């Protein structure tokens, strides 16, 4: 596994608090036994609604439909992003679409850890910084947003903001150990020892 210390690229602004995983990936697309092709259905219902309005001359298309943001690798969000269902289908689809880092005010814990497992850092910035970055990118979608886990900063268009990321997640990205299974399998005797000391495992 490779270390993740920097994600740099064009960004996609996704405004709104508490965007839940049902909206990111509606349940009907979970009717499959693989994650293949999920990216085609990202925000499908929201997109259909926003795009229909845009076609009627009312507002902009959904950012995930807007050609201006095609190829973005950084997702910009507000607060409590990815709340609700634990479905990894949501971060899987974002990853398959090309997202390699998420920058926002805050994240649901399950979404955050699912993203870690895919090597996608979710880094926190202030509400003001999130708003400023989104405005910058909306004005000029070609803006390069640079997320650095070594410097713990996000920079774009001559501005720079501090980012927050729990120390454990940061260490996992910087050392390339974001896929935990290998580490978890390393000390089977220690696992067996803990299991053997639990009364409910040994039958009381």
């Amino acid at each position, binding site marked *: 596994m490779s270390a993740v210390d920097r994600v740099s690229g064009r960004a996609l602004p996704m405004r*709104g608090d*508490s965007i*839940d995983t*049902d*909206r990111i990936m*509606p*349940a*009907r697309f*979970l*009717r*499959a*036994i*693989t*994650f293949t092709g999920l990216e085609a259905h990202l925000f499908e*219902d*929201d997109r*259909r*609604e926003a795009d229909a309005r845009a076609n009627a001359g009312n507002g902009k298309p959904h950012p995930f439909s807007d050609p201006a943001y095609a190829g973005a690798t950084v997702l910009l969000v507000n*607060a*409590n992003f990815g*709340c*609700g*269902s*634990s*479905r*990894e*289908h949501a971060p*899987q689809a974002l990853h398959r679409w090309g997202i390699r880092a998420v920058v926002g005010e*805050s994240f*649901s*814990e*399950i979404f955050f*850890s*699912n993203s870690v*497992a*895919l090597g996608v850092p979710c880094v926190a910035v202030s*509400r003001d910084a999130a708003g400023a970055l989104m405005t910058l990118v909306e004005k000029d979608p070609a803006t390069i947003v640079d997320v650095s886990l070594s410097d713990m900063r996000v920079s774009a268009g001559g501005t720079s903001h501090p980012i927050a990321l729990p*120390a*454990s997640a940061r*260490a*996992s990205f910087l*050392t390339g*150990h974001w*896929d*935990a*299974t290998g*580490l*978890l*399998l390393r*000390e089977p005797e*220690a*696992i067996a020892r*803990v*299991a053997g*000391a*639990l*009364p*409910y495992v040994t*039958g*009381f």
Partner: protein
Amino acid sequence: MGETLLEKVWRAHTVRTLPNGQTQLFIGLHLVHEVTSPQAFDMLRARGWRVSRPDRTFATVDHIVPTKDQRRPFLDVMAEDMMSALERNCRDYGIPMADLSSGRQGIVHVIGPELGLTQPGMTIACGDSHTSTHGAFGAIAFGIGTSQVRDVLASQTLAMSPLKVRRISVEGTLGRGVYAKDVILEIIRRLGVQGGVGYAYEYAGPVVERMTQDERMTICNMSIEGGARAGYVNPDETTFRYLEGRPFSPRGDAFERAVQWWASMASDRNATYDDEVTLDGATIRPTVTFGINPGQSVAVDERIPSPTDVPPQERTSLAEALEFMGLAPGAPIAGTPVDVAFIGSCTNARLSDLREAARIVTGRHVAPRVRGLVVPGSQAVSHAAEREGLDRLFRDAGFEWRGAGCSMCLAMNTDRLEGREICASSSNRNFKGRQGSPTGRTLLMSPAMVAAAAIAGEVVDVRTMIPAPESPAVR
């Protein structure tokens, strides 16, 4: 100094500290279902790993099962595929499974407790965010994603960051017609949908202590709606009595020893908490959500807020919610017409929920335009309800009585809203599109309130329809 249950369980399950500072935590029970596991099994196969502890793993099928015609193969080809994938994986890796022919199938968070698999002091993980339900037994239980399902399958452990504990005490008593669902909706309304991020919620106080296990499950179930990945109640006599004689509970002397250990895992009296919150149970009223997240709720006799009533940072989401819901700011929530009434889900589809709802519908009939659906949480609930004649009461009142599963809680089968229908629902999520129609609308409430809404054809205060005696939480 005393310890909380969380600290005790964490310590007992800690394998080691990982290089990044996280804890490697042993998982005592891994529950598996058909939607979030097939990819995990594939990852396992691709890496040539075995399932480490099939004996500590248990599977069932709930999300995609049809609730009408359950004959195999299912008419729905995708559902059949998912079902057979789970059956194959369980067979290949020796994992016990409660399938449709077992008499034990049901929503994973209903059958775990029902079978006695869920026990105090355990760590429990499942690829489902409502795993927090099992915390009602004094377990530390949380939802995980598919990559973490793979981790638990392979190692029976997880890499976890420690959680803080917020103690939420509900004092006093609940009024008539006020249920566990109203308590948790009120908690989420007060603390917000992200108030619990980083915390486990410990629910305590006289109201919670008097609650049945079913009611405690309703509360713990929706911890995640408040942002808390886990929620728990300290195990007590109510818990132990519930577990006695269940298929997977210890028996005889072992049960006595188990009770001692279980009791020892409860938070100490002098434990310290990262935060403490107190609510007065007497002020809680039957509660209804009006928006698109579970924190957007009002008491049934209140009015829907308008964007000017709320703090600036909530205005945009409130405006978005009202637009989507087609509800007018300042209007009373009572009287909102409903098209569908859904009694089901891991929050509120246990026998006691069905009994309460049945009390309301007895001798009455569902309003002419309303489609009413009762979906028991498990086959065991269904059979018990049928033995009591509840199925007949519901059918006579004009409800459909279905087979067990998640059904219209997330609409992965054919039970779903059409167009802009409004659904009075006993489930846990009112997200846009949650019940299967992208424009469908959900009003969350207690099962008794859903029953009342079905009869009236609109949101109505269940207290005006409730016969004596009192609701269980009041007893």
